[in-house]
C-alpha cells in the first residue's frame, strides 16, 4: 500500500440474480482528496458504495484500509463505521425534533448515563472548528437543509473517520448552500479525510474534486485527474459514446409579444404562493423560467396549472377567456404539468407503471368511464416502448424503477393526455446523463410537432439548449426576458444577478 492511499479496492465483483452489478472494479482513494465516483444510473456506483459500507457482501475482491495490515472483510455498516468508513446519504437520516448536539451524539455514547453538558460543549467545539453555522442547543429541524446535511457530516467525521462517503449530498440544496457544503468538504480535505463524492451534477464535480473514477455497466472505465478530463469528455466516457452534438438541435421560434396565436396567455396571474405576473406562450414554442432556487419560478408554473389556489388574474387559451382554479381545470384545457419533486408530487409509489401512466387521462375522462384492463395495458406497453422505459412489465410498481425511468413514466402520463401546453419543472433533476439528453431531444421534437412547452431546469446549459425564450426571475418577480442572441450563459447570470434593468 502506498503512503498516501487510505483505501484500496481491488477486483471487486458482485452479482445479483441475473445481473452482473460489478465486474472486477478497482478503486483507490488518497488521503486528503475528494474523489468523484461517476456513472449513469445502473452503472454500479451505489453497489460499489454498498459493498464498501457492508450493506452487500462482495463475491470477489479485496479491500484494504490504511492502518490495518492485510485485507479487511466488511460485513455490516457497523463494521464499516469501526474501520473508519462513514456515509452521509442524500436523504437526511437524523431526527429533526432533537437538538443539533443530541443528533451528533445519539447512539454513540457507551455509558448508561448521558453527560449533556460535556456533549453540548464538544458539539459546540466541533461545529465551530468546521465552521458550521448551528448552535448545539438548536433544534435540528429549525436549521436549513444544508446545515442539517453538514451536521450529519460532522457526526460522521467525529467518529475517527478516514473515508467519508457523500451520496448525492447536494441534490436538495440551492447554490448558496452547495458552496457552504463545499467549504466544509475542503476543510475536511485539509484534515486528511478521503472523500468519495457521488453526484449527478457535473459542474459540482469540477468545482471540488481532485480525481474522477468512471463506471459503466458495472465495469471500471478509468480513473482520471480532473485536469485531464474535460466535462464533455466525461459525459462521453460515462455514456460510452460521443454525444450527439446537442448544439445541432433545432430550436423553435420565439414569440416576443402575446398574439392571437398564443396558446396560453395570462395577465396578472397570482396564486397564494406567487406574485402577479404576465405570461404567454405561442404554439410550438419552448420557453423557460429561470432564476435561483426560491426565486418563484416553480411557484409561477404552479399558478398556471392551478396547483396552488389561484387568487387573481385573467387567463386566455387560444384567445378565449377561461377559468383555471384547480389542476383538473387546467387538464381539461389541455395543460399538463410535470412537478418539480417527483417523489412527493409525481409518482403514486405503490401503484403499477400502467396505473401511473393512465392516471391523468383517466381523470380527464372521468370516474365513470374507466379504461378496460386490455386498453390500459395496450397504452402502457406503447409508451414503455416509445419512451424506452426500463421496467420488468407494466405491472411493476413504479417505486422499484430508477429515477430516470420514473420520470419517463410521469412524462408518458402527460403525453398520453395530448396536451397543447406542457409544463416541465425540473424534468432532468437527479437522473442520468443519457436520459437527460433523451428528454431534451423529446422536448424539441414535441415542440416541432406543435406542442407548447415551458421548461425549467437548474442547469442553465440545459435551458439554453432547449428554450428559445427565457423568463428570468428574482425574489419572486420577473426581472427580465431573454431571447435569440441574448441567450448566453453570461447574459442569463447577469440578469439573475441583477443587471436586468
Amino acid at each position, binding site marked *: 500500500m502506498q503512503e498516501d492511499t487510505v483505501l484500496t479496492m481491488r477486483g471487486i465483483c458482485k452479482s445479483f*440474480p441475473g445481473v452482473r452489478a460489478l465486474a472486477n472494479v478497482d478503486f483507490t482513494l488518497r488521503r486528503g482528496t475528494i474523489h468523484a465516483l461517476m456513472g449513469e444510473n445502473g452503472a454500479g456506483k451505489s453497489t460499489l458504495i454498498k459493498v464498501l459500507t457492508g450493506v452487500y457482501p462482495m463475491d470477489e475482491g479485496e479491500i484494504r484500509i490504511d492502518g490495518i495490515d492485510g485485507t479487511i472483510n466488511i460485513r455490516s455498516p457497523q463494521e464499516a463505521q469501526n474501520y473508519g468508513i462513514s456515509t452521509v446519504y442524500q436523504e437526511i437520516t437524523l431526527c429533526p425534533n432533537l437538538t443539533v448536539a443530541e443528533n451528533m451524539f445519539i447512539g454513540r455514547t457507551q455509558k448508561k448515563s448521558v453527560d449533556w453538558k460535556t456533549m453540548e460543549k464538544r458539539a459546540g467545539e466541533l461545529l465551530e472548528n468546521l465552521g458550521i453555522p448551528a448552535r448545539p442547543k438548536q433544534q435540528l429541524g429549525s436549521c436549513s437543509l444544508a446545515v442539517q446535511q453538514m451536521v450529519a457530516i460532522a457526526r460522521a467525521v467525529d467518529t475517527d473517520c478516514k473515508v467519508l462517503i457523500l451520496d448525492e449530498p447536494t441534490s436538495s440544496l440551492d447554490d448558496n448552500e452547495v458552496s457552504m457544503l463545499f467549504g466544509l468538504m475542503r476543510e475536511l480535505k485539509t484534515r486528511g479525510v478521503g472523500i468519495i463524492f457521488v453526484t449527478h451534477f457535473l459542474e459540482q464535480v469540477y468545482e471540488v474534486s481532485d480525481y474522477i473514477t468512471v463506471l459503466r455497466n458495472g465495469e471500471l472505465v478509468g480513473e482520471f485527474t480532473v485536469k485531464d478530463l474535460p466535462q464533455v469528455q466525461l459525459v462521453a466516457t460515462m455514456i460510452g459514446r460521443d454525444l450527439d452534438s446537442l448544439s445541432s438541435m433545432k430550436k423553435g421560434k420565439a414569440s416576443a409579444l402575446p398574439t392571437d396565436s398564443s396558446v396560453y396567455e395570462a395577465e396578472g396571474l397570482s396564486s397564494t404562493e406567487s406574485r402577479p405576473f404576465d405570461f404567454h406562450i405561442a404554439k410550438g414554442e419552448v420557453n423557460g423560467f429561470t432564476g435561483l432556487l426560491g426565486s418563484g419560478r416553480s411557484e409561477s408554473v404552479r399558478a398556471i*396549472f392551478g*396547483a396552488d389556489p389561484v387568487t387573481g388574474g385573467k387567463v386566455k387559451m387560444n384567445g378565449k377567456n377561461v377559468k383555471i382554479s*384547480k*389542476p*383538473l381545470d387546467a*387538464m381539461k384545457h389541455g395543460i399538463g*404539468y410535470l*412537478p418539480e419533486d417527483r417523489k*412527493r*408530487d*409525481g*409518482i*403514486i*409509489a*405503490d*401503484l403499477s407503471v400502467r*396505473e401511473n401512466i393512465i*392516471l*391523468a387521462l*383517466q*381523470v*380527464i375522462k372521468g*370516474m*365513470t*368511464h*374507466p*379504461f378496460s384492463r386490455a386498453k390500459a395495458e395496450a397504452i402502457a406497453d406503447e409508451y414503455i416502448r416509445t419512451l424506452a422505459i426500463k421496467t420488468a*412489465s407494466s*405491472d411493476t410498481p413504479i417505486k422499484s424503477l430508477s429515477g430516470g425511468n420514473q420520470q419517463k413514466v410521469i412524462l408518458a*402520463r402527460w403525453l398520453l393526455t395530448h396536451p397543447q401546453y406542457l409544463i416541465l419543472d425540473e424534468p432532468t433533476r437527479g437522473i442520468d446523463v443519457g436520459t437527460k439528453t433523451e428528454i431534451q431531444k423529446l422536448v424539441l421534437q414535441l415542440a416541432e410537432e406543435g406542442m407548447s412547452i415551458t421548461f425549467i431546469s437548474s442547469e442553465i446549459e440545459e435551458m439554453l439548449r432547449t428554450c428559445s425564450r427565457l423568463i428570468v426571475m428574482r425574489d419572486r418577480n420577473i426581472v427580465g426576458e431573454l431571447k435569440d442572441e441574448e441567450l448566453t450563459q453570461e447574459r442569463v447570470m447577469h440578469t439573475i444577478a441583477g443587471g436586468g434593468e
Partner: protein
Amino acid sequence: MKKTKTSQFFSNNSQLLIPLIAILLLIVFNLIRDPEFFSVGITTNNRGDAVLQGNLVSILNGASELVILSMGMTLVTAASGGQDISVGALAAIAGSVFVKVLKGGPAITGTSVFLAFLACCVVAMIFGCFNGSLVAFFNIQPMIATLILFTCGRSIAYWINGGATPTITSPIISAIGSFIPGIPVPTPILIVIVMGILFALLFRFTSLGLYIQSVGINQGAARLNGINAVGIKLLSFILLGACCAVAGMIGVSRLGLINHETILINIEMDAILAVAIGGNNLGGGKFKMLGSVLGAYAIQALTITLYAMKVPSTDVKAYKAVVIIILVALGSPVVKDTMSRFSKKIKSRSGTVGKEAA
C-alpha cells in the same frame, strides 16, 4: 408464457394467502376434531319450509354483518389511511331508524320496509358524511374523528326510539333476518352476495378503485392529477355509512327488535381486524376488498369453532386474541421478507441442481 402469467397471478394476490390459510387451517382442525362438523343438513323450520342447516351455514350466515362492514372499512382504510371505529354505533342508529319508520306506519308491507331501509340508508350516509368531513376537511385522524360517533352513537340510537326496545314482527322482517319462504339459503348470505356484486360492478364500471388508491398512497400527487382528494375520502365514508345501514337492518331483522345497547356491539374492532387479516395496509393505499371479506369469514369461523368446542363465551375473546396474534404476525412485513428470501434460496438451489443435472 403461461407459467409467468400464473406466477404473476400469485404474486398479485399473495395478500389473500394469510386469510385463506387461516380458513383452511380452521377447516382441517375442525374436520379432525369432528368429521361431521361441516355436514350440511336440511331441516324444516317453524314455518314449514325446508332450509339448510349446519355449522358451515351458521358461519356464512353469522358473518354477514361483519363482511358487509369490512367491505366499507376497506375503502375508508385505503382512502384515509385510518379506521372508522363508529361502525357499530352507526349500525345501531341505522337499525333504530329502520324500526322507528316501520313503527310509525300503519302496517308492515313490502313498500314500507323498502322506505324504512331507504330512510336508514340516508341517515347512515349523512352520519358517514359527518365522519368523512371531519377527516377530509379538517384533517382529523380518522380514529379520533370517529371516536365522537363511537361515544355518542348508541345514545342517539336510544333517543330515536324514546329509550324503548320496540319489537317488530312481520313475515317480511323475518324473511330478511332468516329465510325467504322457498329459498333454503339464509337471506343475510344472499344480501352479502348482492353487496359483493354491487361493489364489483362499482369497481368494474368506474375507476373509483384507482382514485381511492391514489389518494391513499399520495394525496398531493393525486390532487395534481386532478383528483378531488377531499371528495374521494368523503365518498369512502359515505359508502361505509351505507354498509352500516345494511348491517343494521340485518341485525334488527334477525331478532325482530332493536336493542341499541347490544346490537352489533364491538363489531368495529372485528371489522378493522378483517381488513388487516386480509393483507390490507392499515396505513392506506393499495387494497383488496376480497382479502377483507375472507378475513371476516376467518374471524367468524374462529368464533364458531370456539363455541363448538364449548369454550365459555367469556373466554372466547382470549382464545381469539391468541389466534389473531399469530395471523397478524404471519402477515407482517418482517415475516413476509423472511419467507420470500427463504423461497428465493430454495429456488436458486433447485436451479443450480437442475443445471448440474443438465
